[in-house]
């Protein structure tokens, strides 16, 4: 199991804050600057309130995991971070989310989504070639000045997603010809192509086998250097393996947020302990 190596590394470097309110910027070193911070975030689907007063800080170049039972609001929270929930009719959000200190609602939405990339639960490659899938974000954001640059950026993204060697000879073939794990890495490459500062991963491995999952997890470690990563996962071992920080959600509330080791070994709240020890959920 590959869990041991990153975990020990994590224990060394983590600021191990005690609870969410104590997670101030002052505590950390320069490596733990705040990338995203949510304050009192509420979210409604029609008359149903899906999120209740979520406040949380997400640190730059760290992996933050959200765990919790189905329907607890962790994916909904993730989708407010790039304002993707706005596309859903009859929804309402209040509270603030700051990206590098700037309110995300003051950032033009396409600019925000370029800076905050997302990978979904089920791989969703476009019905286009492998090349065009990766090039899509570059094209629509006007980031490809010429053909050569475009090719270069596509290759670089595929390399970062550890997919280049598997697809370099079939870039013009349909993306649907790839395996499930390859498709998910293609979606990661597609998201990376526009150089996002934050990468939101919404249960990226839930439809993948253990080998493909291990590849994505390896990828997450490599991407930490260049991105801030937020991952929603149902798999607690996965959170323990990849995340520096973990937030536990229950019924639309953030019950506890802390360093991953604290959450899994010494949680402050009874609900968190029950969940991570498998007593419910």
């Amino acid at each position, binding site marked *: 199991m590959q869990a041991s190596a990153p975990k020990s590394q994590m224990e060394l470097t983590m600021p191990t804050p005690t609870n969410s309110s104590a997670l101030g910027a002052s505590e950390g070193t320069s490596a733990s600057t705040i990338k995203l911070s949510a304050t009192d975030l509420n979210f409604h689907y029609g008359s149903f309130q899906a999120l209740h007063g979520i406040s949380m800080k997400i640190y730059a170049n760290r992996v933050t995991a959200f765990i919790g039972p189905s329907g607890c609001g962790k994916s909904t929270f993730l989708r407010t971070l790039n304002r993707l929930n706005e596309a859903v009719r009859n929804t309402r959000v209040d509270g603030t989310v700051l990206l590098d200190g700037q309110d995300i609602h003051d950032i033009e939405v396409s600019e925000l*989504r370029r800076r905050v990339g997302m990978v979904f639960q089920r791989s969703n490659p476009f019905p286009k070639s492998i090349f065009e899938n990766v090039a899509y974000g570059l094209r629509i954001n006007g980031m490809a000045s010429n053909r050569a640059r475009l090719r270069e950026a596509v290759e670089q993204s595929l390399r970062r997603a550890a997919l280049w060697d598997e697809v370099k000879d079939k870039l013009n073939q349909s993306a*649907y010809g790839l395996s499930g794990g390859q498709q998910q890495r293609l979606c990661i490459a597609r*998201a990376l192509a526009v150089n996002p500062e934050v990468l939101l991963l919404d249960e990226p491995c839930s439809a993948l086998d253990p080998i493909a999952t291990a590849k994505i997890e390896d990828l997450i470690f490599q991407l930490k250097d260049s991105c801030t990563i937020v991952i929603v996962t149902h798999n607690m071992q996965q959170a323990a393996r990849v995340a520096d920080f973990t937030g536990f959600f229950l019924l639309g509330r953030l019950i506890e947020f802390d360093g991953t080791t604290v959450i899994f070994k010494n949680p402050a709240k009874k609900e968190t302990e029950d969940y991570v020890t498998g007593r419910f959920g």
Partner: protein
Amino acid sequence: MTSLHTLRRKAVNAVMLSLTGLCTFAAAGTLVFILGYLFVHGAKDLSLDFFTKLPTPVGETGGGMANAIVGSAKLLLIAMLVGVPIGFLGGVYLAEFGGATFSFLVRYVTDLLNGVPSIVIGIFAYTLIVLPQKHFSTIAGGLALGVMMIPIAVRSTEEFLRAVPASLREGAMALGASRTKSILTVVIPAAKNGIMTGIMLNLARVAGETAPLLFTSFSNRFWSPGWEQPTAALPVMIFTYAISPYEDWHQQAWAAGFVLLMLVLSVNIIARLLLAKRKHVAR
């Protein structure tokens, strides 16, 4: 007791099975019968002349229906120019932008339009174009067929766009695409084959329409001199020739029927293949 019960169950099963089987046979058999009958009567009188020559005057043998074939093509071209843009864009609106109440109304109205008898749509084109101009015209016929295409074009476009998974739209928007851009660059391309199939089937459907052409494009014994003049069309020729008292005209009507059916059938088959290909790619 038990055996009697079993016997009864088996009898009911046998009766129901043969009844449903018979009805299935009747449904499929009708098509086979029409195809076979048309083939026997139509194909034997089919020659190159049918596709290249004009109709001959009564009493003269030979001749063809070249003008009707070209006329049908022209009518369908106009129908496409009218029906496809309106139907396609209407479908895009319904699938992607329409609010619930308004979309419901539009959907309801298009369903009603779909139920309007074709001859009534013919009267519409007649009143709109033929009456003011005081002569029959190809454009009027094409317009009538085009209007007939609209409801199905709207609904099929809408259906195929709705079938595109939401995850693709979200994928595009998560990369910074606006709603409109994601529709143009991802959703419509993903639904392209389906939409084209819908249009082809729609076209094949109106290709056989006769009633709305009777008083719009009327008919013509000769080459139609222009878009604003009456033109011959295959279905109208079949009607005219079939009710005539001349034996050789009957033969020509069979041949025309056969050609029309083959055209419609091949469009249908091509469309189905297109759709099957799409399904195969998308899994």
